[in-house]
């Protein structure tokens, strides 16, 4: 089998160049590729375009690459948790393309699935639809959206095997499977890396064909953004 397992995040991001387009999985801080983001910061590649549902918080997740001004453009659906982000955007230092969350997910999937474009009702009649083709299906207007292209996709899974198969946990799955499909080079970091044959093929969420490099992350902070609890009565 061709060797997909790399030694760690530094080897995993080999080939990253200034100006590239990256996809990064996760929703909020849940299921983000923590270790790969740290390696990208260390690497210093700049003028990056990042496709990610959110932009992290000021001092974690993609916020770390905003601090170092490595990101030229963000393509996201919601960025409300990051003050630096808002400042950079309003000052024009950061280009921002905000798109509906479902459209973001579907444009990633489409890219990985060889579907160059599709119609969706989301965003019709809004800023999002500007300059886009409108067509009515079943009496309802839809807009044409295109697949994303990305040089690298960084995803994070719970378990993975040497063949690149991935299993996610809970709501940490989110955008990771579609981005894994979409990346020309998909780098998966996992909490636990096992030999091929240890994962039940029936429970694999992302088949190994979509993953080019895989490693076990050294440490996971898995920071919680909104710790909400109830008290035992």
């Amino acid at each position: 089998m061709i060797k997909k397992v790399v030694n760690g995040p530094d080897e995993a991001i080999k080939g990253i160049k200034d100006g590239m387009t990256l996809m990064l999985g996760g929703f909020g801080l849940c299921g983000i590729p923590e270790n790969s983001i740290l390696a990208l910061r260390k690497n210093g590649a700049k003028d990056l375009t990042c496709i990610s549902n959110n932009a992290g918080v000021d001092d974690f997740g993609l916020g770390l690459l905003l601090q170092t001004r490595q990101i030229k453009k963000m393509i996201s659906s919601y960025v409300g948790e990051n003050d630096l982000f808002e400042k950079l955007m309003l000052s024009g230092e950061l280009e921002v393309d905000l798109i509906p969350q479902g459209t973001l997910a579907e444009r990633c999937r489409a890219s990985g699935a060889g579907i160059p474009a599709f119609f969706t009702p989301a965003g019709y009649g809004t800023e999002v639809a500007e300059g886009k083709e409108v067509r009515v299906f079943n009496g309802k207007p839809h807009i044409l959206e295109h697949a994303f292209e990305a040089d690298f996709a960084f995803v994070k899974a719970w378990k993975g095997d040497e063949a690149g198969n991935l299993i996610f946990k809970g709501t940490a799955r989110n955008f990771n499977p579609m981005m894994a499909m979409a990346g020309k080079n998909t780098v998966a970091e996992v909490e636990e890396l096992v030999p091929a044959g240890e994962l039940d093929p029936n429970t694999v969420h992302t088949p190994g064909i979509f993953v080019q490099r895989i490693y076990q992350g050294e440490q996971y902070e898995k920071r919680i953004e909104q710790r909400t609890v109830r008290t035992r009565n």
Partner: protein
Amino acid sequence: MLDKNGIAKRIAKELQDGYFVNLGIGIPTLVANYIPDNIEVEFQSENGILGMGPFPFEGEEDADLINAGKQTITALNGASFFDSATSFAMIRGQHVDMTVLGAMEVSENGDIANWKIPGKMVKGMGGAMDLVASADNIIVAMMHTNRAGESKLLPKCGLPLTGVGCVKKIVSNMAVLEVTENGFKLLEVAPGVSVEDVKNATAGKLIIEGDIPEMDI
């Protein structure tokens, strides 16, 4: 006049047995606290869970189990996890029976604005544009007026839109209204609120037919 919990309580009466429901951030989230005893509904959160349960007990928080508001949650029996594409397949494909979300402005033809104030605030639309463009049954939970006392129910939205002609029902702190072809139709008033009060607080076209009952909450 209702408080936030009152609005949530009134919206909860719109729930029907077996409904799959998506609740937005803010007041909509509170609806989950007022599910009528005789029915069961399942909550979908667009980040990838169906069968969302209450907040975890202290010490049982799981960073891998959150809702769309990034809050730690739990999963009920019969829950399932899925990716974002599948989640929005549920939404766009109209498998979700009811969507409750907040709004900055709603217009008399059912347009809604809730994601951007040019030059001031741009948090992004998240899943709101997909939700409002897809759902047949959208209920807006909102304050009738803004802090300056100006109506948020307008002839036309001034802010960038989230969706056009999609809002069907509004539950505000003052009233329940249906969005009809001819404007906002007043269905119920909140306890202590007169029809006249609603008139004064509604800038968009208001339709008042016959006696308007008081909300039963």
